[in-house]
């Protein structure tokens, strides 16, 4: 009797477990399928977009009219951006396939530049036409390779989720798989980037602030580790008995550098100071400690930051932006020359509003870019620049400013602040040819959405 009951109870339990397991399995299947569908969509879209992009590139080569050209350039730009975004949706975080993405990015940059410029004034140069042809050929190669991979995926019913699991388990997916195909495409794209149009650095110096800094310091005297600690103490006005710990920076950075950790004399957490090994130029400083109280105003803090820079020989800096985040003040300073604000040389400062200590500094851009500039005389009068401004905009403040424009060139501009319908705008009008280099809507304060 007892046994019969036991059997009955256990049977029910077993059946219950079975039903439960089956339901769980169904749910997991459904999730896995929808996960897979997202990957499949991204992949097939990528193949489609690359095809389409090649068609449009071909069309642009054949057009002769300005307006059609603009249309197809804008179309290539749009599709290349979409394709770039598709790549980001594939589980490629574990495989280096970034050359293909770089290729797409280059196509997007190039076509954007060509699409927005007035080609009646500046027609396509021979070099650019050639570049367009190169892009077209490369798009053809990538596209047909990808079509091959796609055919494989379809005929062998390859699942991206499986590939993903293999990658996570760090087993090599092996030859002939979709990943392998895509990696081969990427190898090709690597070859593309060597003869590709890249940011042509008109000014003859590299795009990247760190590389420029490397050029700046290459002939300066070399500091050894002890001198670096000394230099860090000096920069932060610390007594000589403060302990420092030095690390060399890795060789991924274009210049040799040190990172020095200094003990805070007030017993708070350490300061980190990084500097170039040649010349001992401090690139950034950071102290991490909890800052809860607000005892000084943003204005006082900005004075402290300005004085800090002044004492360390940053000449003629002007405060251009200040923001308070609870008990922290962040500031942007730019040096001025001939009344022009030099935005590429900006310095970031961070001051704690509890005791007025400097807790952050970043001077890389200043150190890399600050130099004597010789063309700070505007050819246009301010009034002429104001004529270029939209009539609905009421201009309330003007400055001269050097900025880096969208092509990465330094230009002298009139920096104007104006208002229109409760919004404030910042405009940069080229001071030599009246071109509108940049217009920004200044962001207002951010409401707190989860107000208590």
């Amino acid at each position, binding site marked *: 009797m007892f046994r019969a009951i036991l059997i009955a109870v256990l049977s029910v339990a077993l059946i219950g477990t079975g039903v439960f397991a089956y339901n769980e399995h169904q749910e997991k299947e459904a999730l896995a399928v929808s996960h897979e569908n997202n990957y499949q969509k991204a992949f097939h879209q990528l193949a489609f977009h690359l095809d389409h992009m090649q068609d449009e590139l071909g069309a642009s080569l054949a057009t002769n009219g300005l307006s059609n050209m603009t249309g197809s350039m804008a179309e290539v730009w749009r599709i290349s951006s979409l394709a770039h975004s598709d790549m980001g949706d594939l589980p490629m975080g574990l495989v280096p396939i970034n050359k293909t993405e770089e290729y797409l990015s280059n196509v997007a940059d190039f076509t954007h530049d060509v699409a927005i410029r007035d080609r009646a004034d500046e027609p396509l140069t021979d070099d650019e036409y050639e570049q367009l042809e190169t892009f077209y050929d490369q798009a053809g190669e990538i596209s047909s390779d990808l079509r091959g991979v796609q055919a494989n995926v379809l005929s062998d019913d390859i699942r991206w989720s499986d590939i993903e699991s293999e990658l996570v388990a760090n087993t090599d997916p092996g030859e002939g798989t979709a990943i392998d195909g895509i990696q081969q495409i990427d190898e090709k794209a690597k070859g593309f980037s060597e003869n590709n149009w890249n940011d042509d650095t008109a000014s003859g110096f590299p795009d990247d602030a760190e590389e420029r800094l490397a050029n700046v310091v290459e002939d300066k005297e070399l500091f050894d580790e002890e001198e670096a600690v000394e230099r860090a103490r000096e920069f932060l006005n610390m007594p000589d008995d403060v302990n420092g710990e030095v690390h060399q920076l890795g060789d991924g950075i274009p210049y040799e550098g040190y990172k020095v950790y200094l003990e805070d004399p007030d017993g708070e957490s350490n300061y980190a100071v990084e500097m170039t090994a040649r010349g001992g130029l401090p690139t950034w400083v950071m102290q991490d400690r909890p800052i809860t109280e607000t005892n000084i105003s943003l*204005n006082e803090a900005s004075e402290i930051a300005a004085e800090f820079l002044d004492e360390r020989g940053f000449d003629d800096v002007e405060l251009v932006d200040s923001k308070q985040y609870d008990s922290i*003040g962040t500031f942007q300073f730019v040096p001025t020359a001939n009344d022009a604000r030099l935005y590429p040389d900006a310095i970031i400062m961070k001051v704690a509003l509890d005791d007025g200590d400097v807790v952050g500094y970043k001077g890389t851009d200043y150190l890399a870019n600050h130099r004597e500039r010789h063309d700070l005389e505007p050819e246009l009068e301010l009034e002429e620049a104001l004529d270029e401004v939209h009539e609905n905009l009421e201009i309330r403040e003007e400055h001269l400013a050097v900025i880096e424009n969208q092509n990465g060139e330094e230009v002298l501009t009139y920096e104007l602040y104006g208002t229109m319908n409760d919004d404030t705008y910042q405009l940069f009008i080229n001071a030599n040819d009246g071109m509108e280099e940049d217009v920004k809507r200044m962001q207002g304060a951010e409401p707190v*959405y989860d107000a208590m």
Partner: protein
Amino acid sequence: MEGSVRYFLATLIVLGGVLGFATDRGEAFSDQIIQQGATGDDVVELQARLQYIGYFDQSIDGVFGWSTYWGVREYQEAFEMEVDGLVGSEMKNQLEETTEFDEQHVQEALENAREFTHYGDTPKEIQKGPKGSGEGEGEQAPEPEEPQPEEGEPTGEEAPAPEGAAEDEEAPAPAPEEEEGEQPDTDEEQPDEEQDDQANVQKAMNAPEGYSDNDIQIMANAVHGEARGEPYEGKVAVAAVIINRTDDPEFPDTANEVIFEPRAFTAVADGQIYLEPDEEAREAVLDAINGQDPSNGAAYYYNPVTATSEWIFSRDVHTEIGKHVFAD
């Protein structure tokens, strides 16, 4: 029933008026110089006072932004001071002479996220919306109705309401222990539709250019998931890697795409990104957005102990912070 309650409240108001309580000028400014970008009570007072005489028509949110800046400059011009957009002692004295500040009205409305304004020629009761109304959008500017003289307004130090007993616009409870001079909320003069330049008021904060507070939150989630237990410098570096990737042609162009790129970050893959980030993670993100980059331009980082992928070790190392190696 409701009618009698209203009647009672209206009587209270009239009584208060007759008793003629002096208008509460609120706490005067502290002695700091207030400049653009500042936040806090001084800014609330500044905005309210500027609004009182019509130099500021945006919502009073306690953040010294562009609209406040232009208001200050216009005021300085009108009162023949140096036009520099800084609010120093001279300007504060001038403001205290020319305007009034009903701190209770303003702070209470901020507290309860009400819509409110602070114009000098409009009775306070109609410059206030129901609780939470400040979260709605409502910017139109019909004329204020029947301006009344300021003196008719009962105000006074508000006794702090007991927890949970905050009065609600819709159902005011005529509590007998109400202090005289306290200003009860009433429907009486509540116009039905959105009225006079209802600004959208809430507490607010500064946000760096180009990022919303929610974007910062998503990045803080990612940083928290990836770099919990790392030193602060390491958190800033992780946030900086996300930003460096958005500028890198080899990666997607927005922080969200970079973060949610499949398999780009382990914390995203295993769901740790959905943990509640701490204040430190947020601060690290702000630092990185404001230009700090302890990774020195790295686009990758990995933990050499747990990294599984071979090729990551082939990348040029920038620096090591805590458990992470940053590389390009």
